[in-house]
């Protein structure tokens, strides 16, 4: 111990000689980028939340009234409940569906079925469609006019039309369907890559051990995918929490507030009601929720030794 610190001491003068030594100069560009493009906006939003700032531009004073008013807003409860349902169902739906398609594609490739690349590409196209366009596509499909796409098809099959968007409960389900449809591709790609990196010998060992297909999924694939599933869930959750473009063009948050989620509520507060302070308070709430959920997920991340 003594020897070591002695050596360190002897070395330190030469190290100090150059101001460019040490890790800091190397980290500086990244720190600057993060600081300017991420940290500063967050801090500024935090500051704005403690003001009465408005886009209409009256004089800014510092106050906690904006935050208190937002928390006391009777709509917030509905909006948070909507957000929980929308995010929860979207994350579960996207991860499960993405996993199912990824397993299917991997299986298909192993059996050398033709068209697997095409399948992957088709699924991916949903992902590259902008959210607003996605909302418009689905609003055509869900359109309840006599010429609406899905209801027309149902009528051909003698099934009574469904109130996809005008019934508040259905509207939420329809919005989730539209969002899952678009987001599944992301989960599929992440999980596809993760499945491909599982050592195939594990499946052979399991086969020799007599594991049935569902046992191989449950005891080999899923545990091996754990890290990917959790990282994927974190990303999808944050992405879904921030989704409002698809909703805005599909239902606009309606009927009433049936599909108004926190991000859309925040957007409306700032850009429709011009309440910059209130919107900042809401975005802080969103940040807290995202961070909280990410931390909860992180608890389930496997320890490094188990990944190997």
């Amino acid at each position, binding site marked *: 111990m003594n020897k070591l610190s002695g050596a360190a001491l002897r070395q330190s003068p030469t190290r100090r000689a150059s101001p460019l030594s040490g890790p800091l100069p190397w980290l500086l560009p990244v720190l600057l980028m993060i600081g300017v493009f991420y940290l500063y906006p967050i801090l500024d939003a935090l500051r704005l939340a403690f003001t009465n700032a408005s886009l209409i531009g009256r004089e800014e004073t510092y106050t906690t009234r904006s935050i208190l008013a937002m928390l006391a807003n009777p709509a917030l409860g509905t909006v948070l409940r909507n957000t929980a349902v929308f995010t929860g169902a979207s994350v579960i739906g996207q991860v499960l569906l993405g996993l199912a398609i990824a397993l299917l594609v991997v299986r298909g490739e192993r059996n050398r079925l033709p068209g697997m690349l095409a399948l992957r590409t088709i699924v991916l196209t949903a992902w590259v469609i902008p959210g607003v366009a996605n909302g418009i596509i689905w609003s055509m499909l869900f359109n309840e006019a006599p010429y609406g796409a899905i209801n027309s098809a149902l009528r051909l099959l003698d099934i009574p039309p469904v109130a996809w968007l005008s019934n508040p409960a259905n509207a939420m389900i329809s919005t989730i369907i539209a969002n899952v449809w678009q987001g599944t591709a992301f989960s599929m790609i992440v999980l596809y890559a993760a499945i491909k990196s599982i050592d195939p010998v594990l499946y052979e*060992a399991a*086969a*020799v*051990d*007599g*594991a049935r297909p569902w046992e191989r999924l449950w005891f080999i694939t899923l545990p091996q995918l754990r890290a990917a599933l959790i990282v994927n869930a974190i990303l999808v959750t944050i992405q879904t929490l921030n989704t409002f473009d698809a909703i805005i063009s599909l239902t606009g948050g309606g009927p009433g507030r049936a599909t108004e989620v926190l991000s859309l509520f925040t957007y409306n507060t700032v850009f429709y009601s011009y309440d910059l302070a209130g919107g900042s308070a809401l975005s802080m709430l969103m940040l807290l929720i995202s961070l909280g959920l990410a931390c909860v997920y992180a608890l389930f991340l496997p320890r490094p030794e*188990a990944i*190997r």
Partner: protein
Amino acid sequence: MAPVSLRGLGKSYDGQEAVRGIDLEIAEHEFVVLVGPSGCGKSTTLRMIAGLETISSGELRIGDRVVNALPPGERDVAMVFQNYALYPHMTVGQNIAFGLRRRNLSRQQVREAVADAARLLEIEPLLKRRPGALSGGQRQRVAMGRAIVRRPKVFLFDEPLSNLDARLRTQMRTEIKRLHQEVPTTTIYVTHDQVEAMTMADRVVVMKDGAIEQVGPPLEVYRNPRTRFVAEFIGSPAMNFFDGRLVAEGDGLAFRMDAGPALTIPPERRAAYGPIVGEKLTLGLRPEALAIVPRGETPHLAATTRLVEPLGVETLVYFDAPGASGCARLSPDRAPRAGEPIALGLDPAMMHLIRPDTGAVVPWN
């Protein structure tokens, strides 16, 4: 525990034959080693037995059942993989117990079975750890524990020792042998290492280009290789080869080396070699068939020492002779120094005559 029978077993990928016409009867409790260079089809054969590769042709029986169409799990075989294939997210205990899932055992029975296997392999302290925290040798033992715990009809080993260092390899070799004695089970073991094959096998199966070259007990194969390939592959250092011609000499026969002395054929072989007098042949002599003789003695092979490897109990001497080079296994007190010219006596009793065109060893007994 059951005999295994391979009849005309073959495997082809996209019309390319990787394994063809494998006929092999493996007795109950027998320890058979498939050995050959990489690409010879030994692993494919093993994987067909395991059920990991479909069988393109032929018939495979385990016990009295034809198992061609059965999935691996229903063949009652256990396999140890080259890189162990332990389930990384399970503890050692769970890894070992995994194969018992289908046995309808009580929790207590599973615990006992795992404990027994762990005791046998001396890995009891590791049961709660995960594979990531184990050394290579420990993983190897766990992989074997996973196989043993199921008491399968057949053990399959796919190059299980190739990832270990030399010392561990030797140790695990005896370990596997010991296990086989304690838990006698039909075992099929694949390796490219002929030392493993020689030391472990009840019978060795030498394979080349997807077909069996020779089957037999290790010493039998060593002493009486049927082809030049087997002669060369089995035994280390490899057999020495000298080109020459079989000629009549007086009332006997002799092999006249193209560049060296003539070797008198032992009388008991004369009848067998009679029909091939006059043909060009290759003489095969293992390193122990060569010995240093006084220079005057005839016949001898004059050579120059290139390299001397003292191994303690014996010394290997690599030499260059006209038209050939080779290796002699000598006793240490008679070993020459490198660069020294030597006279090598050749023991005709240990000779093999090989047809250069087919590579077949001419049988004589």
